[in-house]
């Protein structure tokens, strides 16, 4: 059988498994997502990751936290919920960080993650929008990214938690800063003698 036919056979076989939703005939049950913890345990992990990472940034920066947010995980060609959700939280740094300091900031964070034994899974070295991803084990991840105008976001999350059946399992959180028109405004405005210059 040629390459094309093999690929077609493979796709059809997968189609049958995913559409039928059965796990017989070769589906790997290991690949089905199962919750690694409940939302409360995930929250503790997320807080530890964000707080640890933030402390590693010296001099200290100011920040605003978004709500803990749960997003349903789905699977199969029909894209149906698999009973787990991804729980995550964003921490927006409100201190202005000059482009010349991006390297220093990312370096501090990356060194801290490595010292904790996390695995660096991805590094984006774009000059304006750099980012680093790390995994801390148990499906727990942490991430830093810089937006186009220089805003910095730290995120931490747990990939598969027991579905808390609500989008914001720990409430809507503290309101984030808004601009004159009432739109959310994450533009950093706090000046720091070191980071902002």
């Amino acid at each position, binding site marked *: 059988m040629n390459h094309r036919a093999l690929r077609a056979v493979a796709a059809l076989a997968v189609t049958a498994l995913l559409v039928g939703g059965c796990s017989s005939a070769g589906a790997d049950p290991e690949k*089905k997502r199962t919750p690694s913890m409940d939302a409360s345990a995930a929250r503790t992990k997320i807080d530890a990751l964000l707080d640890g990472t933030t402390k590693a940034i010296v001099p200290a920066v100011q920040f605003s936290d978004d709500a803990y947010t749960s997003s349903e*995980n789905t699977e199969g060609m029909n894209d149906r919920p698999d009973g787990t959700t991804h729980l995550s939280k964003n921490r927006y740094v409100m201190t202005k960080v000059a482009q010349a300091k991006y390297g220093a900031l990312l370096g501090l964070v990356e060194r801290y993650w490595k010292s904790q034994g996390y695995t660096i899974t991805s590094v984006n070295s774009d000059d304006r929008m750099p980012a680093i991803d790390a995994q801390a084990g148990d499906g727990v991840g942490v991430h830093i990214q810089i937006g186009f*105008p220089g805003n910095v976001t730290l995120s931490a999350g747990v990939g598969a938690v027991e579905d808390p059946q609500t*989008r914001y399992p720990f409430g809507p959180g503290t309101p984030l800063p808004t601009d004159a028109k009432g739109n959310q405004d994450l533009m950093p405005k706090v000046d720091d003698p070191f980071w902002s210059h």
Partner: protein
Amino acid sequence: MDIATLRDARPADLYDAATAYDKLAENFGRHAGTWKDGVDTRVKNSQWTGSAADQAETSLSQTTAKLSAAQIELGMIGPVLRDGAEAFLLAQSKLLDALEEAKAGGYTVTEDGGVSWPPVSAGERHDPDFENPSVKGHQISDRINNALSEAAHADEVIAQRLRHYTDNAKNGTGLDLGTATTELTSKMMNVFGGEEDLLAKGMPAANASPTEVNSWWNGLTADEQQRLVKDHPDLIGNRDGIPAEARNTANRAVLPGLIKDLENKPNRTEDEQTKLDGFKKIQGRLAEEDGKGNPPVFLMAIGTEGQGRAAISFGNPDTADDVVAYVPGLGTKVGDVGGKDGNRAKDLWTEAQKADPSRSTASITWLGYDAPQLKGAEQETLAVAGTQRAEQGGAGYQQFLQGLRSTHEGTPAHVTALGHSYGSLTVGQAAQRPGGIPADDIILVGSPGTGAQKADQLGVGSQHVWVGSAEHDPVTHLPSHSETNGMLGGAGIGLVTGGIPGAVVGGFIGDQVGKSGDPHELWFGQDPASSEFGGRRFDVADGEWQHSHSDYWNQDSGGSGGNSLRNLGSIVSGHGDRVNLQEPR
């Protein structure tokens, strides 16, 4: 009615007359109240008994009833006049628009509504770019005549109603409390919501373009707009060309009724139950997001057609700098707009804000079509779904985006069309319709094909067609019709049918169309991730067969989507040049 009558009419004066009638009814009501308390009730409570007393009481009660009836009748005149004023104003503004356009185009309009234009010269006739004035002339003539007949109709209806009340007053039926009360509650006479609601009748026809709808809407006064939203939310909420604020208010007013109707239905079908659960889920989600506060959430569409319709926007699409409208695909149910697909729109909103908070974002999930449901191996398959749903959905999606463009305030937004799974076929079909879609970027994720062979057929330039295709996403590997055909006719047949329920294969071999032997030919045309297609493939995680079709919005922090969501955020916020690319297939 002739042009001069409508053009020179001062229908706004009717508002003053309506206010005067309201005042009259109010004063009359006070007078009736004084009579009732001062005479009727006092006599009843006076301890006066006997047959003379009974007769007096009956007589006094009758007088009280007549006064109440007259008050109700008087109270109905004001709304009729106001209703008429609005209908006349609407017809008048349509007439003035048409006359203005006629004047600008050099057309002559006679007093009876005839439109003429200068003769076409021989040179003009042979010029391929020459626009024949007769086409536009006929359009203007139609518009003038429509405005005149709308005004004439309004005139007739208002006159008839006023005559009705006058007759009631003359012949005394207007003093009968029973008649007055019946009229007050009668649908025919209910000027606020009956079939003869003249303002609603002025709405553009069902096939009018979103731009026409928008110019009609903008021609209404703020009061008229509010009244339509309040009295006819079902006509306003899903109408493309009406601003997001009004659609949202209307749809949120409609939603509880849809839920109640379904709840009251005995022996609900499975389909109805799915819709009921879905609408409740959406309602719950709106409450949750309202509690969060920012961004504001707009219910852009809601309805029971087909499998149910819904669209939700995080952020106001009429004021946002960046707008993304996501079309979900295989297996999507209406409740998902309040669930996983709503989450995706919201997560993408957040991601676009992280990428560039100096810009405002609106992120929409649009389910304006029936997404194919793969039900096991026995019923519908991708092949049975075919392209029909995507073609119909594509027409609706095109119109939705045209509506967004027409309602957007100020500088046009940077618009991204985003399709997942079968929804990418829907987006592809919309983009290939005449006129294309008013989008700057197109993103296709988990795509089984768009019906196009080349990215540049989608009308936004191949450099603005972005493709996310996980290596282990089965939908992005669905073989083409001809491949399946050839395979099943060849040595592979035993292997395939051995492990696969017959109907799946049956579905795939049905509707066979011979195509080229291109290895990148997918179920619905060229694989968008292939180099032949010519789009830009951005980096996503390879993933697992089980769930990589679903992982494009999964966050990097602990999730399994790799760079996907971050790349989506960069494209939506207008920073596509910063995405991480991946080698095409």
